[in-house]
């Protein structure tokens, strides 16, 4: 009787573990888009400073703005076009327009089983007009979902 009870206990334990194992489901809570992180610096002071207002949208996508007269923004999250090797943005800092262009390579990256794949980028080069923007620089080429600055915009 005792051995049967031990076997039953073992079976119940094994069944519980199997049940817990089989019922493990996941959901995606991670950042799934790799943004190019652009920090904004005031050229005269060299310090990271939010402009009075900032608007940003993709060239040819005037009706869909990424930022619209945003205030207190020290770092802009700029989405790159994964289906193209380059893209351009219209950036309006304190009412003055500039065009920012980026050239890059794109590759898929597995985030996790639950989140699936996203696209990472490697920035090759940047170009900007200089109406308000004084200069730009690349601080980290690889654009990932991590919170790492990629470029600096001095205005």
């Amino acid at each position, binding site marked *: 009787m005792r051995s049967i009870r031990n*076997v039953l206990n*073992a079976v119940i334990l*094994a069944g519980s573990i199997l049940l817990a*194992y089989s019922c493990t489901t996941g959901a995606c809570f991670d950042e799934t888009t790799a943004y190019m992180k652009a920090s904004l610096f005031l050229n005269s002071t060299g310090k990271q400073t939010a402009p009075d207002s900032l608007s940003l949208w993709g060239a040819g996508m005037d009706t869909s703005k990424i930022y619209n007269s945003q205030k207190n923004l020290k770092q802009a999250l700029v989405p790159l076009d*994964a289906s193209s090797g380059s893209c351009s943005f219209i950036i309006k800092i304190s009412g003055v327009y500039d065009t920012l262009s980026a050239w890059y390579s794109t590759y*898929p*990256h597995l985030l*996790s*089983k639950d989140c699936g*794949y996203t696209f990472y980028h490697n920035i090759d080069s940047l170009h900007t007009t200089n109406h308000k923007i004084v200069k730009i620089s690349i601080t980290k080429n690889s654009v990932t979902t991590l919170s790492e600055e990629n470029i600096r915009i001095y205005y």
Partner: protein
Amino acid sequence: MSSTGELMAQKPAATEPPDTVTIPLAIRAGVDISGPVIYLTDKNNLTVEGYLSADLNEKRSLFLGGGYSNYKYSQYNYSYVTNGFFIKAGVDFNLMKPQTAKGKYWAGVGLHYGLSSFSYEIPELSHDNYWGTTTASLPSQSLWSHFIEASPGFRAQLFGNVTIGWSISLRKMIYSGGGKDIRPIYIPGYGLAASSFSSGINYYIIWNFRYKTIKVLIKKDQPEEPEEETTPSTNTGSGNMQNLEP
């Protein structure tokens, strides 16, 4: 030696258990039934697995296992297909006392090394962002992975040469074969590759083919001597010491 042991066992047979126990050594062939059962409820996950083991003695067995996995997964933004073979080799340790196990029961742990050869493919993946939806696919890639496994479990003889049992598998990845960006999410024989640790459970039906019997000496538990018997000897010792004193 054994005849002496038998004689010694026969002499006090009326009052004491024998000093040796006969243990059959067997070659075992086991088939896992949990994989096909899971497949009945989840047609995207098929694993067929089995093993062979050969008893070296009453405690240790050589283990050689293997199987095939076909795993599919899809969700709103990608689909994943993998299939491949795996083998595991190692030693199983029976932790039961021979007089309890009697060659019929096994409660112990197996320590195995696993090697998986598989291919995987992402037929479609998509990602949405500000610019719209980007789609892609990744062609089939072949990889090798390897891992180690500890398998505690229990087996009991059901009837004749048939044994049933289960084991829990606790696995630690050594090398998944994948890169930093593109890597497998499921590895045959290992399971989900998201973590460097995975677990699973197997239920086995096992056929035993006995090839030899051995006699194993039983370690008898020494009966505790009552304090009343030890006290006089201590007293005797101290008495001797006292005798040595002038």
